[in-house]
């Protein structure tokens, strides 16, 4: 290992790294692009978070205090679009950009220029989307699910929104293609598919999901567009169309989409838990198969989002059973993580803390998911705050915590510097407490009958809404610590070792710290690979 390190250092000096703005505009380096994706995601996270705080401020007390109901609907719609397409998905692509080449022993992503293009689509897409806040009629307000006929009542924002979604879709399809090509074609000799770290595996499967369903979303919104402008009636009952068909097409995309948001999280957690348990991942192969079966099942459960549209009995039963079935591979994963910790030697650095919170709170979201799958009960839960609680548990302490865990985990390798562990832990505790105070009471609200997507509510819901809003501000403002802790690490953190985590395995830790600009210019030898390997 010492050998490779010096070798790579030598190379580093020959790098012709462009400087200034050009370095970013014309970036083709996977690390530069990865950084841009992560910074972009962070900006969107704060913008989306600001919208969430507008929502929670309005809901702090009954009565309308701050915003018009129409604007409130724009806030929920834009919040979701920004968080899903602007924060979580780009953050995953950023992590993939940074880590996949390092983990498979490649010098860079397979398609560097395409990589540049797919990143630079995003700022345009989101500028367009955010511009809708200023057009006549306001930003889209029909929910991120864009159900017609409501979404067709939008004003001038409509074409901008659709165009923005197309750009985001193209960006993520191209990003996904890049990941697939890198993983399938660029692995170092000797790195078999079943030697890859789980993060690569889960991303490979995610990438296929993206390529399969983002175009379906593109199709659905294109049909909306032609219904709006060109008099087609795909979804207009007046012309023999069916608004429910939109929901089927949307959720055919939408359910795999939620797994696009969470599968890479499974990968990150599967890296971190073994590291800090100082023990190999339990059941590596079954993890791969479980991920693949979740991805497969995600194509046949979509209608669980639309049990109340009035489906035939057989359809409802089918989608109930298939949805429940997803809990099985998901359970396998959770059990494997538990077994990884069992008889380990566990320490609690910040990445591990976030991974543990993921384990507990994602599982909690899985429980409410299981309850939602029960059709008769879903007739009560559907479109209530119970659903809001469910998906926020799987998305915030699920996907978002995993992203943060990954950033804390790999930051020393990226920057060569250690973050401040104390502030990291403070960030963790404030986030974890905040997220539970924020979302747990929403289960109660939903069960007691509070519908989602409303700007005002009757007084019986007042107490828990107030608690939830307090939690929201705690969670929201705690995230400033995250920016601070990273900023201060980059600026003035302590120097990090090549292998800053005692139990870390995988090729990325065989590289010197900070990782050289071009990761593996000469592919790692078999002995380096087996040194890095963990199973």
């Amino acid at each position, binding site marked *: 290992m010492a050998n490779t390190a010096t070798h790579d250092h030598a190379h580093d000096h020959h790098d012709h790294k462009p400087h200034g703005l050009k370095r970013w505009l014309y970036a083709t380096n996977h690390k530069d692009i990865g950084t841009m994706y992560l910074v972009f995601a962070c900006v969107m996270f704060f913008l989306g978070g600001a919208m969430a705080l507008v929502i929670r401020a309005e809901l702090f007390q009954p009565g309308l205090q701050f915003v018009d109901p129409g604007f409130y609907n724009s806030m929920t719609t834009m919040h979701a679009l920004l968080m899903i397409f602007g924060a979580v998905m780009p953050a995953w692509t950023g992590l993939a950009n940074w880590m996949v080449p390092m983990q498979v022993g490649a010098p860079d992503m*397979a398609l560097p220029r395409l990589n540049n293009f797919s990143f630079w689509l995003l700022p345009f897409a989101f500028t367009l989307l955010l511009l809708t806040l200023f057009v006549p009629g306001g930003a889209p307000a029909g929910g991120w699910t864009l159900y017609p006929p409501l979404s067709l009542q939008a004003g001038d924002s409509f074409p901008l929104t659709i165009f923005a979604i197309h750009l985001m879709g193209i960006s993520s399809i191209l990003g996904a293609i890049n990941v697939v090509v890198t993983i399938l074609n660029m692995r170092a000799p000797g790195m078999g598919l079943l030697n890859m770290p789980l993060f690569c595996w889960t991303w490979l499967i995610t990438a296929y999901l993206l390529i399969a*369903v983002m*175009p379906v979303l593109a*199709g659905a919104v294109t*049909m909306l567009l032609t219904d709006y402008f060109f008099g087609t009636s795909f979804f207009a009952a*007046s012309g*023999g169309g*069916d608004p429910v068909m939109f929901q089927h097409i949307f959720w055919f995309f939408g359910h795999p989409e939620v797994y696009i948001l969470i599968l890479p999280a499974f990968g990150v957690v599967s890296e971190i838990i073994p590291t800090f348990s100082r023990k190999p991942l339990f059941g590596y192969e079954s993890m791969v198969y479980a991920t693949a079966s979740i991805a497969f099942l995600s194509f046949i459960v979509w209608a669980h989002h639309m049990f109340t549209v009035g489906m*035939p009995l057989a359809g409802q039963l089918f989608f109930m059973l298939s949805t429940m079935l997803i809990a099985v591979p998901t359970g396998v994963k959770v059990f494997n993580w538990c077994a990884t910790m069992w008889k380990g030697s566990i320490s609690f650095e910040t990445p591990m803390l976030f991974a543990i919170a993921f384990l507990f709170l994602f599982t909690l979201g899985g429980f409410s998911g299981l309850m939602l799958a029960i059709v008769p009960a879903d007739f009560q839960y559907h479109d209530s705050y119970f659903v809001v609680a469910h998906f926020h548990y799987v998305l915030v302490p699920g996907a978002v915590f995993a992203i943060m865990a990954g950033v804390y985990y790999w930051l020393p390798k990226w920057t060569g510097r250690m973050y401040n562990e104390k502030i990291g832990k403070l960030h963790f505790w404030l986030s974890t407490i905040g997220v539970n105070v924020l979302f747990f009471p929403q289960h109660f609200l939903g069960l007691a009958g509070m519908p989602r997507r409303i700007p005002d509510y009757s007084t019986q819901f007042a107490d828990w809404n107030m608690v939830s809003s307090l939690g929201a501000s705690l969670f929201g403002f705690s995230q400033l610590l995250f920016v601070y802790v990273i900023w201060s690490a980059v600026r003035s953190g302590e120097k990090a070792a090549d292998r800053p985590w005692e139990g870390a395995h995988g090729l990325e830790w065989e590289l010197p710290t900070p990782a050289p600009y071009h990761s593996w210019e000469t592919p790692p030898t078999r002995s380096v690979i087996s040194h890095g390997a963990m199973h």
Partner: protein
Amino acid sequence: MSEMREQNNRRLTLRLLGFAAGAFAFGFALVPLYDVICDITGVGNPKDLLRASNVQAIEHDESRLVTVEFVADLPSVGSWEFRPVIAEMKANPGRLYEIDYVARNLTGRDTVAQAIPNVAPGKATAFFRKTECFCFIPQNFAKDEERVMPVRFVIDPNLPKSIDRVTLSYVFYDNSTRVAALN
């Protein structure tokens, strides 16, 4: 990067782009597939209600009576009078019945209207056969014209025993609500 790898990458990229293009096409293919699935699974496709069935009176089942309700709706922009002449009736499965709807054009101009039929419960759709209906073709209406429009229907005796009540409903759309697209 070697020539060979470059070529492999390009080939795989094109394949994946093709896959994405296929997925885009699949999104649109879901539109006809939606109808096909409705048909295959026998749940009944409301679009079939827009076409004449060629059943004539079948063997009918005197012992069974199904309540048939008739409902009329207008979209919010419609200036019409539109109603069934009777609100409900009892029907023997297999027997041919005729009932009437009345529509009056209050839009203040000559226009064309199209009724969109629907049956509840949804699973009765496949068993509700119409041999004649004003919804099969767009209806021309002169200004202020009032017209009685017949519907002839048979309820398929195979209607599941778990259904004892069927609702036939129409929404009456006119020019101003994009009828043209249907034809």
